[in-house]
């Protein structure tokens, strides 16, 4: 593989040079000054370009190939969004500039909020949270503030399904709640009887995603929301799976009180190797008084941000107003697709998933074999039992085919799970190819399992030793 940038150091090489400083020298007291220069890389501009070009060759994005990662919605990232997010009038603005100097930005944020309200059926939005999990934490604090304002302080519990994403219970803990897990029924939805058994006046909220993490629409959703409201709890929507239903259904109509969206999933903003994302939170009017400081609101005389004078606010969730340039990309996307395109995108996301599920159902058991939404889960438990080849092994074999494997081992309730989400931007040909490869690999698992166990063959490194990475952590470069 490649050298680390530090290993390319040649003393006194540098890339960028600054002009000579045009103001006098200043001497600070020695006690404040760095003892020796930081051992940052000393490289030329050519070195830097070659280095990062090499690293880019050993990376794999949606732009490189098929990326059917269930629950991640790896749809195509439109290039137009990159251009709009690079406009100087958006990038070169200090967040503390007077509001009168940023009217374009305020208008954009307002229009984005209004669009998201319409798409989700909610009454107001905050664009502040930096990611989905951050949105979850924000939403739970809103719920807690609501109950607190109603002097309803024995509500210490939040219910999450056993199929939920790990961020749901983690965010609930951050808000000081105890997490109660509720099992799924044999259709993959929330077991309503089990839910009834845990619902009482100690429950602050139920967190759900719909379609759920199995890619199934829970048709009991309205009743579930009603049951929670009946005991005085609120219902939280994890918007990670919104890509299934835009333009066809809305969480606000299902009874959800608070919603977060993942702009880096549903709204095409790029994943960047792990971030930045953006997790706007939408609320029904009952939660509006508690929205975080740094949320843009429109009043009779103009815009302002919620601040310390808004005493019911949950407080500030982060600096400033949100991942603004990510929000610009999402707004660009919404304008590009429009009401018709957003609906068509979701419909085709669901079509593509059903197409693949139908093509694969005779090859691997589908965990819940009914019409799926935008993703579906197959189980390789039987394959493992009969050949010793696991879901992980199949994923490693897929790496040789220039495709990213599906999500593995999630949700936890399906054994040897592979969750497949093609998204709407994938072509029939690339899906057909993936299907064929999976079928071939299954055959290979029976004929010659060792060939799969030794995969991948063509990647820059062979199977990486995760155990050693955790046992003997080397977390930074050691200088000689």
């Amino acid at each position: 593989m490649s050298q680390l940038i530090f290993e390319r150091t040649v003393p006194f090489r540098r890339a960028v040079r600054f002009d000579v400083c045009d103001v006098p020298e200043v001497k600070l007291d020695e006690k404040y000054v760095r003892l020796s220069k930081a051992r940052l890389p000393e490289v030329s501009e050519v070195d830097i370009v070659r280095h990062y070009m090499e690293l880019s060759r050993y990376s794999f994005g949606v732009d490189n190939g098929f990326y059917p990662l269930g629950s991640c919605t790896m749809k195509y990232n439109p290039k137009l969004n990159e251009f709009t997010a690079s406009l100087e009038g958006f990038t070169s603005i200090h967040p503390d500039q007077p509001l009168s100097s940023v009217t374009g930005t305020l208008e954009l944020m307002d229009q984005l909020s209004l669009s998201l309200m319409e798409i989700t059926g909610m009454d107001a939005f905050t664009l502040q949270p930096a990611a989905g999990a951050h949105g979850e934490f924000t939403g739970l604090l809103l719920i807690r503030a609501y109950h607190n304002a109603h002097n309803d302080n024995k509500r210490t519990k939040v219910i999450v399904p056993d199929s939920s994403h790990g961020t749901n219970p983690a965010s609930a803990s951050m808000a000081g709640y105890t997490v109660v897990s509720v099992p799924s029924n044999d259709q993959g939805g929330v077991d309503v009887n089990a839910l009834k058994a845990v619902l009482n006046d100690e429950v602050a909220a139920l967190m759900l995603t719909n379609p759920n993490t199995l890619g199934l629409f829970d048709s009991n959703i309205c009743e579930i929301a009603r049951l929670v409201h009946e005991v005085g709890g609120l219902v939280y929507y994890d918007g990670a799976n919104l890509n299934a239903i835009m333009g066809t259904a809305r969480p606000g109509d299902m009874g959800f009180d608070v919603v977060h969206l993942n702009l880096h999933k549903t709204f095409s903003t790029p994943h960047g190797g792990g971030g930045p994302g953006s997790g706007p939170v939408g609320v029904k009017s009952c939660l509006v008084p508690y929205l975080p400081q740094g949320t843009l609101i429109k009043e009779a005389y103009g815009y302002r941000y919620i601040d310390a004078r808004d005493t019911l606010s949950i407080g500030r969730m982060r600096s400033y107003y949100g991942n603004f340039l990510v929000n610009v990309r999402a707004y660009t996307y919404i304008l590009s697709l429009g009401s018709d395109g957003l609906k068509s995108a979701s419909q085709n996301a669901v079509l593509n998933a059903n197409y693949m599920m139908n093509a694969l159902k005779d090859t691997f058991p589908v965990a819940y074999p009914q019409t799926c939404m935008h993703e579906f889960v197959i189980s390789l438990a039987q394959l493992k039992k009969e050949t010793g080849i696991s879901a992980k092994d199949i994923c490693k074999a897929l790496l040789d085919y220039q495709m990213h494997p599906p999500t593995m081992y999630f949700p936890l309730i399906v054994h040897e799970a592979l969750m497949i989400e093609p998204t709407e931007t994938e072509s029939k040909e690339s899906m057909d190819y993936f299907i064929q490869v999976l079928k071939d690999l299954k055959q290979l698992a029976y004929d010659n399992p060792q060939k799969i166990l030794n995969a991948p063959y063509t990647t820059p490194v062979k199977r990486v030793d995760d155990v050693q990475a955790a046992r003997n952590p080397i977390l930074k470069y050691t200088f000689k």
Partner: protein
Amino acid sequence: MADYLSNTPDQQIQMLKEIGLNSLEELYANLPQDLILQKPLNLELGQSEFKVYDTLKELASKNKVYKTVLRGAGVEYHYIPSVVKQLSNREEFVSAYTPYQSELSQGILQSIFEYQSSMCEITGMDVCNASVYDGATAAAEAIQMVIEKNRRKILVPKNIHPQVVSVMRTYTQWLNIEIVDVEYKNGVVDMDDLKSKCDDTCAALFIQHPNYFGLLEDVMDISQVVHSSGAKLVQYTNPMTLGYLKTPRANGVDIAIGEAQPLGIAMSYGGPYLGFMAASAELVRRLPGRIVGQTVDEVGKRAFALTLQAREQHIRREKASSSICSNQALMALTASMYLATVGPSGLKEVAEFSMRKAHYFASELVKIGFKLKYTGPYFHEFVTVSPLENTIMERVLDEINVLAGLSLSSHETLWCCTETTKKDDIDRVVSRLKEALV
């Protein structure tokens, strides 16, 4: 309309037939039918790229881009080298997911490892995570790193960025954690007040250095007081300044956190930014967020992987100390590229020049009747008490395309200079202000 679909309507019909359906609407047959929207969303129809770009350009043009920016308070205008802008835009980085599949993602993983290494090097720390949302949430997350069963008090001086403290309070409002103010004297931490409040129920003292007013704190002295009561010292810092200033580690700090926007990231009206968290080795298991580690592959070749994942939400769920999943990975890559591009000498120059420009500006302002509010040593930011009211001053400078320092009160201003602040522009500003004073 752009929908970025590849499949044509004909292909869609063919696919529908294969699964036994006649229309896209039928895909939703299992949903409760009263949830199905009967009308289109009340949004405009999709538009061409041409039209959308025009709309966005129009919005952007309504914003004022100042030629000279003298406002900082954590977000600064520094020069971003072209090579950083170019390479951080490579689609392989931009459109990639989190590198859970190590074999396919060695480039991303290595870039994160390099970022971690560079941040450890400039802070003097042993470990650094792969990023959190911003500096303010880094401070809030650091609280969980220091809390013990019998130490639930966090000391926070009043000269830390108010937004940072605000987020710390929001994050801890329902947890059994107390945030206690520490006073400042002449702009820096009041040692007497600190000593009176630092006891064995304190988990940590958080300081900002250089602090919100731009002043330099006596971190070594502070660290002695804090450690003698068994508490930890957390330093919130602008990593750009570490090109010149002593490392947090050398000052006895246990955890270094802050906002790394000054390292090659545009001001962006608030985000995306880059929260960094670096700590001494014994605190590694309490660090939130992703961490990349070095290991080997099956044949002994050096390789990188996400590691120590048992700290994180997807494994620990409700027992995780943080719910963070998506972070600011691309911004970390950008910062790492910036640090490699400026190198050790360049980072020193950026810091030193920023400091020199600020001192020059301050001395020129003093000559025309401004006063420095605090007398102690400062770095690249400083607070003045002005003979001119701030609203007037801002307007006067706005007219010459200059964004004045941040108004702290009617006559107090927090100014910031960087290596981009030209002497000519400083002179122009001072001369214009002198006119306005007459």
